[in-house]
Structure formats: structure tokens, C-alpha cells
């Protein structure tokens, strides 16, 4: 099925260069040209790009299209937000005598629980009292969920379209649960008003700078992890499973295990992104984890190039910036533009922006070199001809 997509698999010089360019853009270029407001926006988009990076691994290389990536992203985000919210509630409790505390009947509980007549902290919130356990939860929770789904689906050889639809249903279940269990999750408003993390005010400019760089470092770290996996034997087996699952099975491997692994990993990567989102933006809402955001995550990945980890980040940034920019500029027609772009990208450039760069980049580069060094080349050629 994927003959179109079979390109060079493992690391080479080009990929290292593109990775370094991305690092330079994120670490140096953006902080230089953007003020802190725009930079925070980039950080927000980068938190989404984690999901796209995860999708490159599980969709691009593993052949598993998950329409429920928002579930994992949301789990991480809600876990982080729960921790921050408890801290915020504890801080309010400390300022006894303030107006806010007088308005609450239960001190030390998140405000939305108070509004929903919950007087005791629900058990599922207990782990989020401690920072280390929250960190572990961000990594383990999506891993467990993905593992259960993965075992149930891949061991029974559910794949392709069916898997996509089932993950979409899971996304819906999660949305309904998070919206209706208001006392536990903050309902449709989500968890808002997050201010400090371990006593550190995350809303100051300096904190947002630090969080931006932390997000960038984590994205780049995820790309490296992904690249290492793809370069290993495991990566080759993944691609083999994607392209010819039965042959892998006949060779004595349990193809399902590789799929489960990559699905779990992509879930964990997304979850880290969700957690960074909660830190960067200061709230978490069920609107961010529903069906539509999950499809957007797939679109980020497809736009950037489903076979390029670096491309996934560019794809997210381009689509997000494009959405913000065009919806302000052409409020009526930007949907046409986005829609047609997705259609064109899927049909004409299935490898996304990364594919375009890979196909036309070298030619452009060659053209550029020829112009600047044309005379030099000519002389060498002449000399070679003479001798």
C-alpha cells in the first residue's frame, strides 16, 4: 500500500542537518524575532506538535492511524493541570481572610469542586498531590491506556480503518466523561486559573521564557528518541509490519507487539505535550481533547510529512500559524483555503512539506551552487578536459 511512501528510512546527513536547522530555528531564531506573547503562542503550538511527532512514529512508520491522539494528549494535560490546580487551591487556603476564601465553603479544594458541592477530594485526585507522582502519572497513565487498547486491538488484528474509528469512539467517550463529571474535571470549562508550579509563578515573562525553552528541548528530545528507535532493528521491523504484516509474522515475529509498543510510545509522547500545554497556557479544557482536535493532530502530521519527525513540528507550526493568521485576515474564506490545502497535500504531496523539501530541495540547492560557483566549476572541468 505504501509504495509511494517508501523513502530513505534511517538517519543520514540530510536528516541531521534538518534537525540542526529546526533546533536553530526554535532555540535562536524565534526568541530573537518574537516578543514573549508570540513566543508563548509558539510554545502552545509546540505542545501540540508532540502529538504530531507521536503520530509520525505510529502512523507514518507503524501504519496505525489513531484518531484518538487527543485522549493521550489530554491525559497528560489533565494530570499536569490537576497538580497545578491543587497547588493553586492550597495557595488560596494559605491566604486565609481573603475574599476568595470566604466565598468557598471547603478550603483547600479546587474551586470547581466547591461549585459542584463536592466536599472531599475524589480519590482519583490523590496522586496529583505530589509532584514526582504527577510526573510519573503523565508518563504511565497514557502508557497504560494505550497498552490496554493496543493489546485488545492488535492482538485481535484489528487494524487500519477499524482501529481509526474505534479510537475516535474512545475520544468521544473521554469527552463525554470529562464534560459530565463536572465535580471531578471542571466540566466544559476544564481546569482553569493555574498560576504556580512548586511555588514558581508560571505566568511571569521569565517563567514563560524558561517554559518555552523547556518545551523546545523536550520536542527535540522526543525527535531524537524517535529517530533512535527508527534507526534500530525495531524501526525496521515496524516499517516491515506496516508494509507487509503477514510476512513479518511468517518470519517468526509477533507483529502485534511492535504495534503495541509504538502506539504506547506515541501516546506517552503526546501526553508530555499535553502536560507542557497546561504549563505554558495555564488551563486545560475538554474542548482541546475532543474528536476535532485529534483530527487536527493527524492533519499537522500529514501536512508536515508523515515520515518526517522534524516535519511534524514544522507542520504543526505552519498549520497553527496559518489558522490564526488567515482566520484573522479572511474570516470568511480561510476555511476554503485550509480545506483545499488538506485535499491537495493528501493527493499531490502525500509526504507533506518534508516530501516537497526532500524532492525539490537538492535541486534548488544545486541550482544555487551552480550560480555562485559556476566559474570555479568551469575551470575545473576545463583543466580535467586538458589533462
Amino acid at each position, binding site marked *: 500500500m505504501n509504495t509511494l511512501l517508501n523513502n530513505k528510512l534511517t538517519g543520514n546527513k540530510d536528516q541531521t542537518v534538518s534537525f540542526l536547522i529546526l533546533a536553530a530555528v526554535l532555540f535562536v531564531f524565534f526568541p530573537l524575532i518574537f516578543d514573549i506573547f508570540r513566543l508563548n503562542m509558539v510554545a502552545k503550538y509546540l505542545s501540540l506538535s508532540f502529538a504530531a511527532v507521536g503520530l509520525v512514529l505510529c502512523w507514518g512508520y507503524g501504519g496505525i492511524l489513531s484518531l484518538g491522539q487527543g485522549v493521550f494528549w489530554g491525559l497528560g494535560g489533565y494530570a499536569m493541570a490537576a497538580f497545578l490546580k491543587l497547588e493553586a487551591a492550597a495557595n488560596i487556603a494559605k491566604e486565609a481572610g481573603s475574599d476568595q476564601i470566604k466565598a468557598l465553603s471547603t478550603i483547600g479544594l479546587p474551586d470547581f469542586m466547591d461549585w459542584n458541592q463536592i466536599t472531599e477530594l475524589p480519590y482519583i485526585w490523590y496522586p496529583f498531590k505530589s509532584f514526582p507522582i504527577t510526573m510519573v502519572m503523565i508518563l504511565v497513565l497514557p502508557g497504560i491506556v494505550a497498552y490496554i487498547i493496543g493489546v485488545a486491538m492488535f492482538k485481535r488484528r484489528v487494524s487500519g*480503518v477499524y482501529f481509526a474509528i*474505534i479510537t475516535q469512539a474512545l475520544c468521544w*467517550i473521554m469527552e*463525554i466523561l470529562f464534560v459530565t463529571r463536572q465535580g471531578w474535571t471542571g466540566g466544559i470549562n476544564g481546569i482553569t486559573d493555574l498560576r504556580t508550579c512548586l511555588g514558581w509563578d508560571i505566568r511571569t515573562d521569565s517563567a514563560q521564557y524558561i517554559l518555552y525553552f523547556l518545551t523546545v528541548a523536550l520536542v527535540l528530545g522526543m525527535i531524537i528518541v524517535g529517530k533512535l528507535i527508527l534507526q534500530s532493528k525495531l524501526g525496521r521491523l515496524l516499517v516491515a509490519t506496516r508494509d507487509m504484516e503477514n510476512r513479518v509474522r511468517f518470519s517468526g515475529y509477533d507483529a502485534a507487539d511492535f504495534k503495541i509498543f509504538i502506539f504506547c510510545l506515541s501516546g506517552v509522547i503526546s501526553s508530555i505535550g499535553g502536560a507542557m500545554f497546561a504549563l505554558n497556557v495555564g488551563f486545560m479544557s475538554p474542548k482541546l481533547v475532543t474528536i476535532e482536535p485529534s*483530527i487536527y493532530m493527524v492533519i499537522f502530521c500529514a501536512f508536515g510529512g508523515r515520515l518526517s519527525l522534524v516535519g511534524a513540528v514544522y507542520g504543526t507550526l505552519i498549520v497553527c500559524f496559518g489558522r490564526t493568521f488567515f482566520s484573522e485576515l479572511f474570516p470568511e474564506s480561510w476555511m*476554503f483555503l485550509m480545506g483545499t490545502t488538506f*485535499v491537495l497535500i493528501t493527493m499531490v504531496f502525500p509526504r507533506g512539506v518534508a516530501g516537497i523539501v526532500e524532492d525539490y530541495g537538492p535541486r534548488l540547492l544545486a541550482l544555487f551552487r551552480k550560480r555562485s560557483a559556476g566559474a570555479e566549476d568551469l575551470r575545473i572541468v576545463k583543466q580535467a578536459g586538458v589533462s
Partner: protein
Amino acid sequence: MSGTLFFLDIFKDYSSDELSSIFVMQGFSGISLFSVFLLMALGLAIIFGQMKVINMAHGEFLTAGAYTTVLLSDLVTKYIPAALPYYFFIAIMMAFFVAFILGYIVEKLIVSYLYERPLDTLLATWGVSMVMQQSFRLIFGAREDSATMPEWLMGSWSPTESISIPINGLFLLLMSILMTTIVLLLMYRSRWGLRVRATVQNREMSTAVGINSKKVDRWTFALGCGLAGIAGAAFTTIGSVSPSAGSLYIVDTFIVVVFGGAGSIIGTILSAFGIAQAQSILEFFLTGVLAKVFVLLAIVGILMIRPQGIVANKVRQ
């Protein structure tokens, strides 16, 4: 099992008489939900179930059919009010043709290039659905519209004193039965259906025996979209239409088709019936959204045990 105890607890508040009447009434509301599901799912059962195209724009074809009906009802009330009782039948046909032609165009321009990459159809048709939604918004405005209904569709029919059944619900049921019969006959009793099934099972072989598989694809896709258009026309009897109305139905529809077993129209009918009944009976005891969660979880659970859906097509892959 805590689950069963939980339900017994709920039941204990009602007498057995009350319980049976609850089941009857909820059963009928389940039947109208069933006809809604079935009408939506028929088109997708062909496009997704047979052709394996993930048509995310299916809901928008439904909206196109609904807007056609609204437009026609506006024209009729303005110029020939006398025809109001009868226009609805023409509206259904027009809704079919509008959605059919739109589907034909989408297939020719986009989907026909993507049969080798079924997962990519999801992205492309998502783009199509964005474009279509925005077109509806520009043409008809963002607010909700509704069609003027002929008198005979309003009101309700009461066979006994305690039961009253809304006429539009009955109409939907009749429509869904009629459409299902037509689709079943088309797929399993006509030469064209034979060609469709042959192409689905083995494209190369069907081409080799002289089936124009491109033409079959195009007409099948367009027919599926046309059916969505009819569903849209039928839905104007029970609700209003807005540019994004179709996207509300799309996930439900996919789940109905997958649960029934893609590739089997009988499966789609059974699954629409099962899901609708379970949901409306549960809805009486739980809140609507929780009933939905229970039903969805049950579906996911059953699909884990039986990934091929309720009715599996016995075809060698």
C-alpha cells in the same frame, strides 16, 4: 456484578406495569432513533462498508440534502402554496440528485485517486467537509433554518388513549424501511449490485472479466452520497438544519457501520437497531450522555471480542 445490582436498584422504584409501559414507550422512541441511524448509515454502509472510503464529508452531503429541502419549501410557500402538501416527495428526489451530483464530482476529482490509500481518504474528505461547511455558511448563513412541513406530517397518531405516536416519527420509519429495501434489492438483486460487490472483492479480477470498475466506483460513491441527501431531507421533518449539522451525525454513523460489520448491509440494520434501542431504553434510567457512554463502551468492548462486527462477510482477504 456491581453493574447488574445497579440496574436492579433502578428498576425497584417502578411497578411491573409501569415498567412494561416504559419499555413500550422507550421502545418506540428507540424505533425512531433506529430509523434516523439507519437512514444515515445506509449511504455510509455503501461508501465505507463496501468501498472502504472513510468519507468524513458524509455528514455534509446530508446537510446538502437538508438545505435542498429547505430551499424548495421556501420556494413553494412563496410561489405555489397550493402545492405545499405534496412538495415533500419532490424535495426528497431533489435532495437525492443534489447530493448525488456533489458526490459524483467529489469522487471524480478527489476520491478516485485515493483508492490505494484508504486511510488518506479520511484527510482529503475532511478537507472537503471543511470546504462544504463553509460554503453552506456563506450561502445560507450561520443560523439554523427549517423547512415548512406539510400539514399531514404534523401531529400524532394515538391507537390507544395512553399511547401517542408522532406522525413524523412514523414517516421516518417508513422512509428508512423503503430506502433499505431499495438498497438491498439494488445490491443483491441487480446486475449493478453484482458488479459493485465483485469490484469490492477483487478489483483486478472484476476488471479482467469486463467490469468498468472506475464507472462502478463513481456511481457507487455518488449513490451513497445521494442516500445521505435523502437522509438529510428526511431529517428536516424532525429538526432544523445548520451548516455544521452534518458533523454531529458523522461519528455515530461510522460507529453504526463498523459495529454492524463493514461490508454487510444486514449488519448495519441490526447494529442500528441494537444501538438505538439500547440507547433509548438506557436514556430513561440514566442521563442522556451517560447512556451514550455506556452504549459506546459496550460497542468498543464487543468490537474487541468480535472485531469484524456483528455480521461478518465471509470473504478471503
